[in-house]
């Protein structure tokens, strides 16, 4: 349960809000590289943290993320012409470069220097791991580039998608650290999904439907361990890392690619659900990539030509009551991604946490909220750089392993939880 003012504090990410300021300390995923596939390609409208922006790749391949609207009469530059190292407004021909600097005002003499005095707000945009990342904070505080393992392995070892989710970012993100829902909502998918099935560890999930949880702080966020009974005086541990403010890793299964999410606010009522899959030591196979493209695992099928899930609120998520009754799916919705999204969207645009009734096993969620609010407050009051900004905090891995019962998971899985180049994930 949160008080109304706490719920506002932690869910609002627009300019000038405490949580918005926190988000603006980090590099965040803005677009997929495929959205700006070549030099001088069409620009793309982007809304992030309640700011309307426009992304484009200029004639030399330089990336820009600028205010969407022309400084002259306020028209959308999405209609602009991307040509000769700049984006030209079709209304009166004003032209802007990737930094937002106006470089031409055709109606004014060049000698007047008028163009030099016009500049649109802009943010840096960098390409890494098939993702275009932006940093929307104070330029003087710009951190080093992100080092999450999925975006540092060779491109044939990684696959990332995004989908629009029509609810506040926090209720979506909380699903990623709420490990206790998996045994219910996703129970059918463990044995059917090509990206999960066949792992030796799955038998522990099936045999013990009441895992016990442990939550510990980590440098960048949290580690959430779910343990189940295993043979020979051992526990089977599935460890989910959360890196502030919004990165989560799903514990691996066998040698399947490992995956996780980012939830990035578009505005306070919508977010992008980013889903990555990668393997630390080998290329993804054709069949794995095909399964991901087909919406298996944590990915979804799309309305063609969009990032809107094919099953979405406008078609009641293609609810299948027969499948629900027969137990093929627990909620009647197909696919892990949309099973989560459908329920999270049903909470409303912003979940009213004043009415919720949490239980002890919700401590991962409780602690994440607590850390977010504490970090936002420390940033506001003391300028403290929040956890998760330092790229060293990104080098964490999810893990699934067997440990003796008297071993603390954070200690026993210490090596497994570090992303090391060329070292396979620790998985059962």
């Amino acid at each position: 349960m949160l008080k109304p003012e706490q719920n506002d504090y932690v869910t609002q990410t627009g300019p000038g809000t405490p949580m918005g300021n926190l988000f603006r300390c980090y590099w965040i995923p803005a677009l997929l590289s495929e959205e700006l596939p070549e030099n001088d390609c069409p620009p793309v409208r982007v809304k992030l943290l309640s700011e309307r922006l426009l992304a484009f790749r200029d004639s030399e391949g330089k990336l820009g993320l600028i205010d969407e609207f022309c400084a002259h009469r306020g028209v959308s530059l999405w209609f602009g012409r991307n040509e000769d190292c700049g984006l030209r407004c079709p209304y009166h021909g004003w032209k802007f470069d990737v930094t937002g600097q106006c470089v031409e005002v055709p109606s004014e003499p060049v000698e007047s220097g008028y163009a030099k005095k016009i500049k649109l707000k802009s943010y840096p945009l960098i390409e890494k791991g098939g993702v275009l990342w932006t940093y929307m904070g104070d330029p003087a505080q710009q951190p080093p580039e992100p080092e999450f393992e999925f975006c540092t392995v060779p491109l044939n070892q990684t696959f990332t998608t995004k989908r629009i989710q029509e609810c506040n970012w926090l209720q979506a993100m909380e699903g990623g650290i709420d490990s206790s829902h998996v045994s219910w909502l996703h129970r059918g998918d463990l044995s059917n999904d090509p990206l999960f099935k066949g792992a030796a560890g799955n038998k522990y999930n099936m045999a013990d439907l009441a895992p016990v949880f442990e939550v510990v702080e980590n440098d960048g966020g949290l580690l959430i361990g779910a343990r189940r009974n295993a043979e020979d005086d051992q526990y089977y541990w599935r460890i989910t890392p959360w890196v502030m403010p919004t990165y989560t890793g799903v514990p691996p299964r066998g040698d399947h690619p490992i995956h996780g999410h980012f939830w990035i606010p578009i505005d306070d009522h919508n977010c992008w659900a980013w889903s990555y899959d990668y393997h630390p030591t080998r290329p993804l196979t054709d069949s794995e990539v095909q399964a991901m493209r087909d919406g298996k695992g944590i990915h979804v099928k799309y309305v063609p030509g969009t990032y809107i899930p094919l099953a979405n609120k406008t078609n009641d998520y293609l609810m299948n009551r027969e499948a629900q009754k027969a137990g093929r799916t627990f909620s009647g919705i197909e696919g892990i991604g949309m099973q989560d999204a459908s329920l999270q969207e049903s909470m409303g645009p912003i979940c009213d946490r004043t009415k919720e009734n949490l239980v002890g096993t919700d401590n991962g969620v409780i602690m994440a909220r607590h850390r977010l609010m504490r970090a936002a407050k420390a940033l506001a009051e003391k300028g403290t750089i929040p956890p998760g900004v330092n790229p060293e905090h990104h080098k964490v891995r999810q893990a699934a392993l067997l440990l003796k019962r008297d071993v603390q998971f954070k200690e026993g899985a210490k090596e497994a939880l570090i992303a090391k180049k060329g070292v396979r994930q620790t998985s059962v």
Partner: protein
Amino acid sequence: MLSESARMTTAQEAAYRIQYPNSKRRAAKVIALDRTSAKIVDEVSRLPWNGASFFTSLSFAAKSSPGSEGGEALQAWLNDLAGHALNLVAEVEAADFVVVITAAGEDARAVSIIADACKLHNKSLVGLVVPREGASEDAIGESLNHLRPYARMLVVASGVDYVEAMLMALRA
């Protein structure tokens, strides 16, 4: 025409959610397992709570050794902030959930007595380990080992502020 899901998930529709208290006051029993955590419990208890009871120590008869079974055999008492000794089994029976708190590296073995009472009445037990200044990872690990066999949820809290935040989140 919009689907039902599309119509029902708008901000406009959220305004029609029924406003009423959807839960009754619940009884949380918050128990310190050692002297250091007793100070924390004492401090936290001074905040306004929604029915939570706070206990700073546990005493038990010798025959109620850890692991003893059965209500009659379990002779143990919780000591509240006013200095009253209350029967552990009765307190746990009246609880909706039980929270035990230990400071890293302190002797937390008394948890097994409380766990026996929880088991007797099928109550959920949450364990909080609060790091002490200078406490090593080994000390935290030792505390976790004491609590692990009994707690449905184990948390290494960042500090006293998390104890407050968690209890508030649970409407204690």
